[in-house]
Each structure stands twice: as structure tokens, then as C-alpha cells.
């Protein structure tokens, strides 16, 4: 009995050490990669962006050459079959600049159309949005999230 416990504890100890070591070793690279990926998403909405700062939970200030050019907010909403993560960008006058899908697991070929420019291009300028035929749940989830974000910024 004691032997069982000792063996398990020993295995856990060695594993924890190995895991901790690997985590520390890869942490700098992983954070750099995450930051780069997020910046790439921001660049899709703000082409001149080269940096960003976090101003609150999921709220970001977009920076270009040292000066702020807009705000962005990351929201999550459940779509048809997955949680959809969106990046919604506003320019300095708090007008909707663009929307990008950061991640989703919607049905390939159907709900996945929410990530395509054909659907996302309507989110800059206009104030009424159309859903995707045949992908109602996925697209209205995105539209609702965007409307919510607009309301939040105009408060």
C-alpha cells in the first residue's frame, strides 16, 4: 500500500518537474506567437496597426506608430455548434470599423461562412446587417454580438 503511494508520488513529482521545465522553456515563444497572431487579426481591421495595449478585460487600444487609432473588443458568443470568438474594431470616433472571426467551430461550408469576407465586409459603415441564408444561427450570433458591442461603446 505504502509502496503504491510512494511510486505514484514519485511519478507525479518527476512529471511535474518535467512539465514545469517545459512550460518555462516554451513560455517566451508561446506568448510571442500569441501576441503576433492577435496583432495579425487586428491588422485585418486596422491595416496600419503595429502594436496594441490591453485597456481592460478583452478591450484593446490599437496603436499605429505610437498613436492610438482605434479600439477593439474581443467577444465570445455561442453560435450553432461552437463558441465563436470575434474581434470587433472601432475607429477613433467610435464608429464600427470591422469585424473578424478569431476562432469558431461552425459547420464547415455552412456556418464557417461567417469568417468569409462576403459576410464580414458588411460590418464597416452600414448599420443594418444581413444574416447568411442557410446559416441563420451562426450568422445571427455574430450580428447580435456586434450589435451588443456597438451599444456598449455608445453608452
Amino acid at each position, binding site marked *: 500500500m505504502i509502496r*503504491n503511494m510512494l511510486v505514484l508520488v514519485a511519478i507525479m513529482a518527476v512529471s511535474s518537474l*518535467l*512539465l514545469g521545465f517545459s512550460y518555462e522553456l*516554451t513560455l517566451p515563444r508561446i506568448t510571442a506567437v500569441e501576441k503576433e497572431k492577435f496583432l495579425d487579426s487586428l491588422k485585418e481591421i486596422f491595416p496600419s496597426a503595429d502594436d496594441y495595449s490591453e485597456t481592460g478585460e478583452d478591450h484593446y487600444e490599437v496603436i499605429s506608430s505610437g498613436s492610438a487609432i482605434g479600439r477593439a473588443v474581443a467577444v465570445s458568443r455561442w453560435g450553432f455548434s461552437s463558441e465563436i470568438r470575434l474581434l470587433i474594431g472601432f475607429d477613433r470616433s467610435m464608429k464600427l470599423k470591422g469585424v473578424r472571426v478569431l476562432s469558431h467551430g461552425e459547420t*464547415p461550408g455552412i456556418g464557417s461562412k461567417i469568417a468569409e469576407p462576403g459576410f464580414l465586409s458588411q460590418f464597416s459603415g452600414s448599420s443594418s446587417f444581413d444574416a447568411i441564408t442557410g446559416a441563420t444561427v451562426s450568422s445571427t450570433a455574430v450580428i447580435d454580438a456586434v450589435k451588443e458591442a456597438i451599444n456598449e461603446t455608445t453608452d
Partner: protein
Amino acid sequence: MKQLINGIWKKNPVFFLMLGLCPTLAVTNSVENAMWMAVATVFVLVGSSTVISAVRSLVPDEVRIPSFIVIIATLVTVANLLMKAYLPEMADRLGIYLMLIVVNCIVLGRALAFAYKNPVWDSFLDALGMGIGFSLALLIISSIREIASSGTWFGIMVNPLGGFAIFALPPGALLVMGLVLGFNNRNKGDA
């Protein structure tokens, strides 16, 4: 040496032992995805079998399963961290299936059936053979699926007559796997 060769075809884990079918279906929509998944799986397979065989005299029978699972999960987490750091796009594309190597039946299966009862070198070879066999199975199925669905192989256009999207989706995966399995086992008679 025989140990190594066996796992590659005669006792191929996917086609004949019927293990590890879930990742085989999930990541074979493109050859590139399948190959990196194979690399990660071989890493875990060989690592875990070797370590487990090395400590087999120290681990009592009653706690062997939790012990093995901790060892396997640790190796998978390390593989996941390494992939996220150095191949982030591939890590995104493999997604959850990378972590699911923990429950890949080939890994725990070989650990229990072989590594726990055999010397380190034999276990290493067995795991390597199984790993190569798994990679081979993934290569065959992903090649068929990618060439049929997007017409490419590893991203290179080879079949302009492709475009059968079903092969990129789960039903297509099952169809291809079934056909390949049937083809491989056609001489088995009524086993």
C-alpha cells in the same frame, strides 16, 4: 529487429490491430496535418514505451494504469507545448486532437501489452515499429483524401479533377478508411 518490422505492416496498429482510429479519421484531411500528428504520436509512443519499460520493475501492478497515464499525459503535454511554440499554425490545425493522443489506444495499448513486460530495447523497437505503422496508415489515408478532395498532395496540385468535398469531411474519412481496411484484409477470408 522483428519487433520493429511487425508493427509496420503485419501488426499495423490501424489496419490490423484496429487501434487509434479516431485521430486517423480526424486529421487525415490533409497530408501535412496527418504527418505532424504522426510525428507527435511517435514521440509520445516511443517516449512512453521506453520510460515505462525502464521503470517497469518499480511500478506495482495495482497502480500501473494511473502511473502510465501520468507518464503519457506528461509526454503529450510536452509535445503540445513544443508544437505551440515552434509550429503554431499546425498546433491550431490539429487542435484538440493533439492533446487526445493521451487516449490514443495505441499508446496505452502497447504500454500495457508490451512495454510493461519487456526489456527497454525491445519496447523501444516495438513502439517505433507501431509508430511507423501508424504514420504509414495516416499517410495512405490522408493521401487518398487530400488528392480526392482538394486535388493536392502536401499542398502541391496533382489532381485537377479533384473537388469531391465529401472526402474532406467525416463521412469521407469513414468511407476511405473502410475501403482501405477492406482492401488490406481481403485475403483474410472469414476470420
